[in-house]
Structures are given as C-alpha cells and as structure tokens.
C-alpha cells in the first residue's frame, strides 16, 4: 500500500491543461525522482499534492485519505512538507526563525529538531541570526530543506532544489539526502538535473507535456529510453 498516490491527476490553469491523468505512487521510506523538461508539469504536480493548487479530492490519496481538495495548511499538518521551487525563505525572518516556521503548526516529535538540522547543515548554525535572504543560494536551499524537515514530515516534497545553483553547491545540498532518507521520511524530488536525481532515487518518473512517459528503477532505464521520454521520441 502506497503512502502517497495520485490517481488520474489532472490540472488546468484556465484554458491551459497542465496535467493529463497522472498516476504516480510513493511507498513508505521510498525516494522517488520526477524528471522532465521545463513545462512538463512537474511543479504543477508538486503544487497539486501540497495543496497550493486544489484539485478533485480523489485525485490525491495519502495515508488512507483523499487529500486532493484539502488546503495547503491542513495537508502540511497531516505530514506532507514541501521545499518550494525558488526556496521561498521569508525575508523578514532570520535563519533560525525561518526554520522554526517549519514546525509552526505541526509539532511532532521525531528525528528532526533545530539541533539535528544544524548538525545536518552546520553552516546554518553559524548564520542563524542572519536574515534568511542574506545567505548564498546554496545556504538558502539548506534553510528551505531544514525548514521543511522541522515538522518531521512523513513525506518531503522537493521542487527543483538544484535550480540556479552551481554544480559544486548542488553536490553539497544533495549530500544531505542519505541522512534525510535514513530518518525515515519518504521523498519526492523534482529535478531537471537528471544525474543528481538518478543517484538518490529508488524509482524515477519521467514526465513530458503533462503526462508520465516513462517510469522504473534507475538501473533498468536505458539512456536512450530516458532521452526519448524527456525530449520526445523524434527529438
């Protein structure tokens, strides 16, 4: 039984349809990567699961409940935390206050706390009183991930965490994932950077133009198959 599942998830912005019946699942403790080019519908998928976009109730199932139409704040309380695209730190809050916002509503005891987040990203402890936006891009991404972890979520959604970061910084950020995984959280990472995603994922979904075009274990997928699923067969 999957912890999180989308069933025939469709999404539209006015006349523009962004998702066409996406079926996807995430098992407890699993890490899943969603890859695809710009405009494939990855962010819309994340926003629909997290409640920033509301869809029909039965389109998203989580822990035996239909959550497709729930509000973002209730979904987070239920245990799905999101690292939004673009990091989205609160500019008027310090690093530590940003982290504390993560457990503003959902206060669940578990492996993650200020101390363990600082242990995961030591640089944040040094800069904990600085305004969130005074940090470098990579450090901001660490705050955003740490903030989501503070609620000890059962599901962690990470939207394009490598976007706009230098390769060496991306490596540092991704270095945290084995520990996040070891803490028991199930993770969905959305990426354009296929390499990083394949390294940490148990399974991969490839999306194109609002549909899942390929899925499987990273080892089972050939380079050609991924290329076709990513860019289309004729590219």
């Amino acid at each position, binding site marked *: 039984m999957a912890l999180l599942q989308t069933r025939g998830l469709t999404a539209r912005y006015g006349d523009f349809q962004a998702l066409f019946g996406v079926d996807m699942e995430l098992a407890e403790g699993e890490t899943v990567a969603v890859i695809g080019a710009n405009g494939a519908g990855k962010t819309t998928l994340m926003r629909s699961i*997290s*409640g*920033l976009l509301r869809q029909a109730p039965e389109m998203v199932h989580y822990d035996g409940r239909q959550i497709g139409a729930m*509000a*973002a*704040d209730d979904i*987070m*309380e239920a245990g799905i*935390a*999101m690292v*939004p695209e673009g990091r*989205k730190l*609160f*500019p*008027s*809050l310090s690093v530590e*206050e940003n982290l*504390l*916002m*993560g457990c*503003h*509503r*959902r206060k669940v005891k578990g492996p993650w706390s200020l101390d363990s987040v600082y242990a995961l990203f030591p640089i944040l402890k040094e800069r904990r009183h600085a305004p969130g*936006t005074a940090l470098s891009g990579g450090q901001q991404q660490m705050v955003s991930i740490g*903030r989501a972890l503070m*609620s000890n979520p059962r599901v962690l959604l990470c939207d394009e965490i490598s976007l706009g970061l230098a390769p060496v910084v991306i490596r540092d950020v991704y270095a945290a994932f084995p520990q996040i995984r070891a803490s028991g959280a199930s993770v969905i990472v959305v990426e354009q950077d296929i390499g990083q995603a394949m390294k940490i994922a148990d399974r991969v979904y490839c999306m194109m133009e609002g549909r899942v075009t390929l899925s499987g274990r990273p080892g089972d997928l050939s380079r050609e198959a991924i290329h076709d699923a990513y860019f289309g067969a004729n590219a």
Partner: protein
Amino acid sequence: MIWVDTVLQGVLLGGLYALFALGLSLVFGIMRLVNLAHGDLIVLAAYLILVLTTLLDLGPFMAALVALPVMFAVGWTLQRLVLNRVLGTDILPPLLVTFGLSVVLQNALQEGFSADSRRIPAGWLETASVPIGPISLGVMPLLTFASAILVTLALQWLFYRTALGRAFRATSDDPATASLMGVKPDAIFAKATGIAMIVVTIAALYLGTRANFDPTTGPARLIYAFEAVIIGGLGSLWGTLAGGIIIGVAQTVGAQINPEWQILAGHIAFLAVLLIRPRGLFPRAFD
C-alpha cells in the same frame, strides 16, 4: 520657558497620536490593508467605553478593560466576514469597502448617540497635574504617553519574540509559502485585526477622557494616524511612535503661534517629511 512647555505638551500629545497610529501600522504591516474606517473604529470604541461606564457604573479604566475583548471580537469578525474577502492584489476593493464602513459607522453612531459631543468622565484625573519645576504636566497626558510606549514595547515583543509574531511576519512576506508551514492566512489576518482593535480601544480610552468626541470625530484621527505611520516609515513600530510625536509637537507649536494653525501645522510637518524623506524616517529595509 513657554516653548519648552509647548514642546513637552506636544510630545505628550504625540503619544495619543501614536496610539491612533499603532493599530493602523500593525494591520498595514501584516496584510497591506489600509483601513479607512480606523478612525471611526476608535470612536466606536470610545462610545463603547462610555456606555460601559454608565451601564455598569465602572471607572473609565475598568470599562476599557471590559471593552478590550469586545473590540477584539469586533475586529476578528470584521476581518473574517468582510475584509478577508476583498484582500488581494487589487487595492480598490479593500479601500472602497473600508470607506463604506466608515460612512456606515459614523451614521450608525449618529443614529444611536445623536450628533452631540460626549466625554468619558474620568473624575479627578481630568484636571490632575504633576509640577515639574516651573512646568506642570497633566496626569492624563502623561498616562497616555506612558501607554503609547508600553503598547509599542508590547507589540515589539509580540512581533519579534513570539511564535504568533513570527507567523505574522512570515504571512506578511509570503502568504502562500506561509500556508505551506501550516499557517492559515485568513486566521492570522483575523487575529491581527483583533489585536489592532485592542490598541484602538486603548487609544479610545484616552481620546474619550481627554477631549470631547462625536460621531464625526473619526476621519481626522485616521488622518493623524496615517501621518504618523508615514513619517515613521511603513512597518516600523518605533518609527510610528516618533511620527506621532512629530505631529503632536508640530500641532502644539503651531497652536502657540496662532490657535487657528494647530491642525494645519501638523499636516504641513507631514508634507515636509514626505518631501524630504518619502519613505519615512525609519523605513524597513525591504517591502
């Protein structure tokens, strides 16, 4: 000596204007909403305190204490039922709705209490004063000023030392991301307006005990409050206090030169600050 006295009286008067302004500043800081009925809500609270003093035979301070939760509920309900529906990127709907509310409140008060001017009785405190050297300062003005400082400190503590304040600032920065943290922006806004109404009630206590008021007193208080907020710099609580003091001093100095110039002098001080420092004296680093 007369000028020292004038300036001191102005500083104390500025405490009253700061009390008018702090609620407005709070609401604007959190939800970018300018409530054009703010002054009329102060007058509403003053009538509420007046009614409580006669109905329950309470002193003004006890009556204000009873009025606090009532006004919190008024603010909370107003935000939940009306203002949350019109918040958004378009500035027109909230302005027009609060403007309508202002007209409705003024006329409802007129219907309920007539156009006669009233005052909240404060007994011996009304005339009590403390001599400091050759100058004597009224006890009520001193209490007003002390309250303004206390309210500023309390709001400062609320904003920067509590989880609720953190949620206020986070929601002000980015409501969508705040909702990903489990914050319900609508509920946060309702609490903020409720708290603003608590400040409004404190302001009303001093408005009503120090001078006469009538149902049309509100708009002028809104203007003083607004001037204090802009002079101080949007979102800065200490700046708002400073802004109130500048308006107060300008008014007493103006009145000292020519009694007819009191109000005008306050407005001109405001325009002068706007001319020299359009973002106010203590602007926030970002908006």
